[in-house]
Each structure stands twice: as C-alpha cells, then as structure tokens.
C-alpha cells in the first residue's frame, strides 16, 4: 500500500525527530510513503477557538490536495498519514462534520472552489491514518518483530497515548485502554508498563500559556510513570513529547522534585530496535538521551 504523509507544522520543527524516525522506520520496512505537496497547517486548537468553519476549510484543503496527488489509484481511497495527534484528530473531525452538517459542507465546498479545488466526497476519498495505526494494523506486529535486530530486552517502557489519538473520532484502538503501542513495545522485546494514565491529557498548549496548570498535568504523568518503574516514556504526538520532555527542568523547579524521565517517540524506539543510527531516528535532538538498556535487576 502507498501512503501520503501530512507532516503538519510541528514535525518540521519541535517534532523533527518524529519526522526523521517515522520516515526511517517506514523505509526500513519498505513502505512507500511520500510527502503531501504544498500542505498547509491544520489550524490546530487555535482556529477552532477563533472560527470553526475556517478550521474545517484548512483541513479540507489538505484532503483535496491529497486526492489530487493520489490520482485515480484504482478507485481506492488515499491513505493520508498524520503523525501529530492534533492534526490527526482535526482532520477526522472535519470529515465528520462535512458529512453530518450540510451547512459545513456547503461552506467548505464554496471556499475550496475559490482556490480551484474539488471537495466532492472528501470523507470517502481520503482515509486519515495515524502512523501507530498503520504500523500496528497494516504492516503488522509480526513484520515489525522480524525487523528487530537489537531487542530491548527487559526495558520498562511506558506507553503514553494522550488524548486526541484515541478520542473522540479515532476508531483504530480502544479510547479508554488502547493497546497498539503496548503491543509494539512487546514486539521490540521490551516490557510495556501498565498504568492508568495512558490517555490522560498532558496539558497541551497550557504548558506554554498557563504554566501553573500545564506543567502540573505533565508532572503528574511523569511522576506516575516513574513510580511504576518506567525507564523510558513513549509518545505519539509532538506536543505531548515537547511538554513532557522539554519542561522537565521547569517542573522540577516548580514542584521541588527531581524527575528525569527520557521521553521519546514510539517510532524512535522502533528505529533503535531495528538498529538504525541515532541520526536516522533523530536521537541526538532529544534533551534527555533515550534509554535503551534495562537497569540491572
């Protein structure tokens, strides 16, 4: 199967290591993936707070571009891979409302037409996918297991899904107790930590606006992850990764604690287990080095 890749703004900056590792892992697995040409920002939570119809139109432009780039493709829908949970969720939400609400679909249609794009059937012609979904369900755990050259035996890895990856529009995993990442971790030879805060919000943009609240939410997650014996926490969203990793200094100051938890993208860990170089998975870009060996028992 062929995939189109929608990076979104974060994967070109703070989430750079996510982009690098996803593309390297797909390459190692021989999966055909190509960047969506001329993509635009999905609008994120900001556009939703200012003007919902504009937010849907921004998303729709990307979908229309994807249909164009995909061409006929035997009538199969185009698989649009969005690694950022916010982009992923917003693209799904736009599809949902374009289907459900005639007013939304009318406005989006008129707006796209003005920039020379077709909006007919975007919700059917485009399938929005998260790379975690693609890896766990299309490529499959077995194929990933086969590629593992350096098993991460005994490493205690905390799978953190966050909010938008599993609700309210996603359907590839359970919204309360998702397990795709757990299964991937096991395939790499590591041990997924079972914890209750898998889908609890990291604070999102609050860490950049109201730090007292944002950092508290992130701190609670890290504290629980380390209490459960986690040695490395994995995320599937650039904002979660940024909040949980880059503000640890701030959290430690504020809450008089000393958390030191490496926080990496799930794709980086897969890459390392495939024996890819640090550069290929963007490991050198992390503030806290990834942990790859289990502590001695």
């Amino acid at each position, binding site marked *: 199967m062929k995939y189109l890749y929608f990076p979104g703004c974060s994967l070109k900056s703070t989430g750079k290591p996510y982009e690098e590792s996803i593309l390297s892992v797909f390459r190692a697995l021989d999966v055909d993936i190509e960047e969506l040409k001329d993509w635009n920002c999905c609008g994120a939570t900001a*556009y*939703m707070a200012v003007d919902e119809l504009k937010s849907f139109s921004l998303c729709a432009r990307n979908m229309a571009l994807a249909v164009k780039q995909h061409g006929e493709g035997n009538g199969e829908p185009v698989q649009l891979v969005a690694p950022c949970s916010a982009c992923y969720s917003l693209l799904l939400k736009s599809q949902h409302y374009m289907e459900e609400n005639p007013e939304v679909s009318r406005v989006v249609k008129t707006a796209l037409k003005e*920039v020379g794009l077709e909006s007919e059937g975007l919700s059917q012609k485009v399938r929005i996918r998260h790379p975690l979904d693609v890896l766990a369900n299309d490529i499959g755990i077995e194929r990933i297991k086969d590629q593992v050259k350096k098993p991460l035996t005994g490493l205690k890895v905390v799978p953190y899904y966050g909010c938008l990856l599993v609700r309210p529009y996603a359907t590839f995993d359970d*919204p309360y107790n998702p397990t795709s990442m757990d299964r991937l971790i096991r395939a790499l030879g590591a041990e997924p930590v079972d914890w209750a805060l898998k889908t609890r919000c990291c604070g999102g943009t609050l860490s950049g606006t109201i730090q007292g609240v944002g950092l508290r939410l992130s701190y609670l997650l890290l504290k629980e992850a380390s209490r459960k014996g986690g040695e490395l926490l994995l995320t599937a969203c650039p904002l979660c990764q940024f909040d949980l990793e*880059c503000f640890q200094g701030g959290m430690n100051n504020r809450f008089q604690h000393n958390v030191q938890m490496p926080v990496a993208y799930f794709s980086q860990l897969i890459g390392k287990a495939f024996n890819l170089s640090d550069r290929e998975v963007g490991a050198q870009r992390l503030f806290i080095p990834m942990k790859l060996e289990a502590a001695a028992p």
Partner: protein
Amino acid sequence: METRDRTPDQLVDLGENVHRLIKYEGELDQGFAAEVARLAHGEKFYTCIQCGTCSATCPVSHYMDFTPRRIIAMVRAGFREEVLRSFTIWLCASCYSCTADCPREIKITDVMYALKQIAIKEGIYPKRFPIPVMAQEFYKIVKKKGRNNEGKLMMNLALKTNPFSLLRYAKVGLKLFRTGRVTLREESIRNHGEIQTLLGAVDRAREAAK
C-alpha cells in the same frame, strides 16, 4: 468585585442593600443557549442531566472557576456574562475526555470552543491573558504563510503578554535551537495568498447564507 467573589459580610453593605448571587429570570439572556447550540452543533445539550461526569473526568476542573457541569447549566439558563467572562473556557485543554464520557453524548468540548469563539469575537477577556492571545497570533501566522512557525509563535505570544516570560523560556529555547528543533526559517505554502483567499471565501459563504 464579582458578586460571587464576595464574602457573606460583603454581600450586605451596611444593611442598605443585600446583593444577590442569583439572577432573576428577566436578567438572564434567554437567547444564549440557542446561540451556543448553533455554534456547537449541540442541540442535544438541553438533555444534560447534571450528573457531573464531565467535571469528574476533566483534568483541569479543579483549576476552573465553574466546572464543565456548571458551565452547561449556566449556558442553558442564560448566564451569558458570567460564562463568557469565566476562566473555565480558556483553561479547557480540548482533551475531549468529557465528550467521550458524557452519558447524554453532549459535545462539551465543542461547547467550550463555541464559547471561546464568542468571547474572542466580542473581545471579552483580560488584555494580556495568554490563551486567547495565542489563538489569535497563531491565526494570523497561518493566515499569512499557510504554516505555523513555533518559534515565532512563542516569541509573539511573550511580547504581547509578558515579555519577562521570554527569560523563563530562554533555556528551553536555546536547547531547541541547538538541537535543530526550532528555526528562524519560516515554512510556507507555495502561494501565500491562497490561504487568505480560502479564509475570505469562508466569510463570504457564511454571509451569503444569512
């Protein structure tokens, strides 16, 4: 001072007046519920049973001045001013926990978004309060370039709210720079004007329906 912030002593000023905490029906905005419902595709929120599941599952409810459950009740009753001036609507992190858990399938997150939209449109928020400022800075950058630049966003936000916060972020910013995770180079789509045309077209299409 807001009435709700007063102590019982302050509520009675020298025996002359007794301030009310509760509004009379006539003072409520009867059209508010419909206005919000329209924006939030939320006709169903009239069916709220006030069970409090949303407030219980919300990760930030203990920082809010009104919990999500109360917001729903207040919107329904027409407490327009109080709701639009609340911190709650800005603290909502849009995590969708409440929406996923509500037994009546009320899209509480969309209600919060609708309230933010009204408050931003009417300019009802403290001048330097970072959350609505950030939303609007983000809006502007994307309108101009089609893509966001995270470094620029954080910079603009700090300058428009609290320039001293730049110091707080300096260490993180520097590290991001060193690891190649922020750049000064701005990403953009091929034809800058296209997003402006698209967004303008949305406004025109919406007007045409009225």
